[in-house]
């Protein structure tokens, strides 16, 4: 399978590495022609203001919205913000294909970034993995069609709405690629 990784800015290299370790092809997406060649898309962590500005300036918004109708997308950290529908603090509206409201940098500055165990419901089983939270956003409100599938303590850190998957931490920064595997095989 060919998995696209949106490569406008952020840690797209780490996501591509995870995809390749799982035996699939990863390609960097910077334009709509490349996007059309992908079966699924990952929107990586990075700076959400930068990524959203580049989506707008490179006129990728419509291509991404069309892609989201028929294909699976996973967003991590800034990728969650890009998929959600909270405009506050962003230069342009996010894609709004995931019915959640998020608060950016909700845990504070870098000094408050941390690694801790998170619980995820993958393949109908609760599993534990290390979650790396870097200046992470928090999910503040979820629409009815959105399902929580992961928690850090009691806080929702992973959600799914049909073929859209989003998490507030960074599964690409550890060597544990079960979330990527779930995204590729089950969504």
């Amino acid at each position, binding site marked *: 399978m060919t998995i696209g990784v949106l490569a406008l800015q952020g840690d797209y290299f780490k996501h591509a590495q995870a995809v390749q370790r799982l035996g699939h092809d990863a390609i960097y997406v910077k334009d709509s022609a490349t996007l059309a060649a992908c079966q699924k898309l990952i929107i990586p962590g990075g700076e959400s203001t930068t990524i959203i500005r580049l989506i707008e300036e490179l006129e990728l918004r419509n291509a991404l919205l069309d892609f989201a109708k028929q294909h699976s997308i996973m967003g991590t*950290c800034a990728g969650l913000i890009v998929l959600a529908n909270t405009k506050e603090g962003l230069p342009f509206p996010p894609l709004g294909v995931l019915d959640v409201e998020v608060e950016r940098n909700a845990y504070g500055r*870098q*000094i408050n970034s941390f*690694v801790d165990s998170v619980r995820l419901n993958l393949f109908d089983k609760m599993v534990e993995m290390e979650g790396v939270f870097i*200046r992470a956003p928090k999910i503040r409100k979820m629409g009815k069609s959105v399902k929580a599938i992961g928690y850090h303590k009691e806080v929702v850190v992973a959600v799914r709405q049909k073929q859209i998957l989003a998490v507030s931490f960074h599964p690409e*920064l550890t060597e544990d690629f079960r979330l990527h595997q779930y995204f590729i095989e089950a969504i």
Partner: protein
Amino acid sequence: MLNKDFLVKVGLAEMLKGGVIMDVTNAEQAKIAEDAGAVAVMALERIPADIRADGGVARMSNPKMIKEIQKVVSIPVMAKCRIGHFAEAQVLQSIGVDFVDESEVLTPADEKNHIWKHDFKVPFVCGCRDIGEALRRIAEGAAMIRTKGEAGSGNIVEAVRHMRSVQGSIRQIQTLAYDELTAYAKNIGAPLELVQYVKENGKLPVPNFSAGGIATPADAALMMQLGAETNFVGSGIFKSEDPAARAKAIVMATTHYNDPDIVARASEGLGEAMPGLEMSAIPEDEQLNKRGW
């Protein structure tokens, strides 16, 4: 070598990849940088070109000015401390700076020792001219490396020299046999296990960014093609005729560094770039990249 604290530090460096980090001296410039698509700002009282022109001792910025910048932008805010000045670094950590740059742009506080960066929760970035210097800083706890270039010069030649040196050494180390690594590590003055990491992974253990001399979108594209993972731009933006337009153009060229058509479009109609300095016009003892070891 990846413990959890270090993972969180390097993690932020990973998030800054493929972007532009801009030097700013006040809240208004910080806002311009964020609006242009900067992934982070470096808060400092004077940009390197002015430090060079003014002379005297350059120190950590006033915390009040850094806090004002933190208030107006949501992207990470970095700040510089002097080489070896761990008390300045403690102050920067205490006000919640997201990354500390132990920087040769400021006047060194210690000519022998750099900061033991493992003691801090805040991540550090340090400059280097070659792979030995890069690995020494990483051994001390740096979570990000930037090649030094020559800050405030508007001249890309030193940035190219340092990036080529680091990338060339990485390729060379990959060709060495294991029994050749110890002698190599001894010669460059770096820990053996980090040289071994480079051999096995074909890269530094932390992200490697470029700094010191970027003034145009093509400069940014050049450094990315030479192996930089992000660009620091200091004087190049706010010493140019139209900072907002130039900042945007450098962001675009950094994202699309391997697409000359887009870099060409980004380069049009930007007004004058900052005036540059020939390296031969800067006396050896005034070259910032010679500070630190």
